[in-house]
């Protein structure tokens, strides 16, 4: 049973729909992890699936993340397509060896003979008042690991489409779900053709500056673009969707037009994803850049306690500040200030 056209769903609801449709259409798909069965997940993303598809296909495993990823690898070797959940970002770390040494590498190790179509769903990032270890933006640990695809939806529509495509992908996918956007609603069209699992999209057009973001920070970036418009800056906003691979083409095309770029993400700046974007743009758009590519990111600190997180997370003001620092008139160059 496929969903009808153009339903309004929350991002979590869209993920739930995607899982249901994948389970219905492909016998090889199975869903397991901690509390994803009877409870339907702590964020209710798997709500109702165990009841509908039975506990052979949607079930609770023992509480061990390396175990979950490691057994998913074995299942995928044997022809299944497991979609597993790590309950929160930091709780995927016990599985790091299975992810980096096996999930990412097994195709390569066997010259393509073993394929691992595993999707690891990771509710990630902050902004929901979560306590320590529940708010990490862990994307770089995965994007730096060759062999993994890393994607993150920022809208309900993309949540549906990207998750379906991730499940269909022959490659292992780290599927990062921005927790703070779980409850945001939007129109979902399950029949929509996607631009592709590895494509960025322009969410707002503009000619003065390109704002590049993804996941939980995209909404804030769009707000900032709106606010910037009031101050006279026409900002283009790109939603990366796919972090690995990186869609250089779409991003560079925009930056060559605007000549200015700001990358926005929640993860710590140092060796964060923005570094790669800035490095690639600096390399590939050098002569088009009117100002350095700036990064608006989390500080280089452990994710703070709930009552301090608003200081850590990139907000509209911080993005506007960065836009203003992009050497619009012949102000003193940034690097002279240091």
């Amino acid at each position, binding site marked *: 049973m496929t969903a009808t056209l153009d339903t309004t769903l929350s991002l979590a609801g869209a993920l739930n729909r995607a899982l249901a449709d994948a389970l219905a259409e492909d016998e090889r798909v199975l869903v397991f992890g901690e509390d994803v069965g009877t*409870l339907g997940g702590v964020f209710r993303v798997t709500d109702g699936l165990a009841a509908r598809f039975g506990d052979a296909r949607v079930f609770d495993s023992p509480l061990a993340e390396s175990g979950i990823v490691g057994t998913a690898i074995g299942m995928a070797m044997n022809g299944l397509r497991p979609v597993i959940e790590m309950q929160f970002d930091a709780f995927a770390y016990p599985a790091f060896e299975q992810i980096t040494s096996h999930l990412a590498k097994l195709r390569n190790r066997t010259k393509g003979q073993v394929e691992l179509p595993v999707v690891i769903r990771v509710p990630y990032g902050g902004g929901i008042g979560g306590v*320590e270890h529940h708010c990490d933006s862990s994307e770089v640990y995965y994007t730096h690991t060759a062999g993994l695809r890393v994607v993150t939806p920022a809208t309900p529509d993309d949540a549906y489409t990207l998750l379906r495509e991730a499940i269909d992908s022959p490659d292992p996918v780290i599927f990062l779900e921005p927790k703070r956007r779980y409850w945001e609603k939007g129109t979902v069209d399950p029949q929509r053709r996607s631009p592709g699992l590895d494509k960025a999209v322009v969410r707002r057009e503009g000619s003065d500056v390109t704002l590049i973001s993804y996941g939980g920070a995209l909404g804030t970036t769009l707000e900032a673009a709106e606010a910037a418009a009031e101050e006279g800056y026409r900002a283009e906003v790109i939603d990366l969707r796919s972090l690995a691979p990186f869609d250089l083409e779409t991003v560079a095309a925009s930056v060559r037009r605007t000549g200015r770029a700001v990358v926005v993400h929640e993860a710590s700046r140092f060796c964060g994803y923005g570094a790669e974007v800035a490095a690639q743009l600096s390399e590939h758009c050098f002569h088009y850049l009117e100002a350095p590519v700036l990064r608006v990111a989390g500080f280089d600190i452990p994710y703070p306690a709930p009552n301090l997180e608003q200081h850590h997370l990139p907000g509209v003001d911080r993005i506007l500040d960065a836009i203003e620092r992009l050497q619009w008139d012949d102000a003193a160059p940034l690097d002279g200030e240091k």
Partner: protein
Amino acid sequence: MTTTERTAASCFLPSDEPLGLVTADGTPAPDPALAMPADDVLLRLYRGMVSGRRFDTQATALTKQGRLAVYPSARGQEAAEIGSILALRPQDWLFPTYRDSMAVVARGVDPVEVLTLLRGDWHCGYDPYRANVAPQCTPLATNTLHAVGFAHAARVKGEDTVSLVLVGDGATSEGDTHEALNFAAVWKAPVVFLVQNNGYAISVPLAKQTAAPSLAYKGVGYGMPSVLVDGNDAAAVHAVVEQAVARAAAGEGPTLIEAVTYRMESHTNADDATRYREKAEVEQWRTRDPISRLKQYLTDRGLLDDKAQQEIDARAEEEAAALRERMNVDTKLDPADLFRHVYAEPTAALRQQAAELAHESTEDQA
């Protein structure tokens, strides 16, 4: 460090049924293997459980008032929480989880400091070295290894310190629990592992967590003596932990204890346990309440009368009132703290980021 000898497995195996000293209805059930705690200890256990439950209720209430972001209740687990803590000596260390606020308070940490994490003000609100309590641990089972390392270091330094580490039934499935049990056994580290088997890991029942007759059976695989105890029997928990602490202190190595108990509330206030378990099961456990059974026993023994009970209740009520009042205050946090404790000295980049944030705040105020 040690040599492996063939020892009969029976040396490590727990009893078939959980050890106990007081039955669910308060009747004494003497066990030759277990000494009934002294009367004053029993009274302290009782007082501790009453205070503990009152604290727990108060904390849950604070979530409803928005004073706490979240609270994982230990209601129903008072015997394990308090029974184990009171068996520790002052120099011993506790390695608790998020579930064990009650135990941390019983160990002497200011309840407001304990709740700092859950009120969202900072990650750990107390100084671990003041009451010998490690920060409450959220990543499951990881604290087991800290406890082992800490205890081993004590031995290296010639200090008489025992680590008590608390974990849940779910956490026993994690690799870290296994590694900790093994390191402790091989190193003969002075550690007591107390598994509070409260039947659930969030929504997942024990039957999906293990196929073994008891979690305590795991000890055998490490050559570690294991004990299965009625986790709702404070006297028995106290006796068992006290024995294990003594063994550890005497250089005889670690012990694994499974305390069978029940989480009466949802996983946290944000959870809804009716989604995954039957009311009847909860009701069934209500009849095995750790507090009422000890109350009955103490009353029958003439150790507790109405007056004493009133005093105990009043004190618990006072503590709760004080906590409520102290939590009912808006705290003022200094954002500059974000950068102060990442390294011993802030790096140049962190100083820069702190300056940027300070600048933003000034702008906001302007």
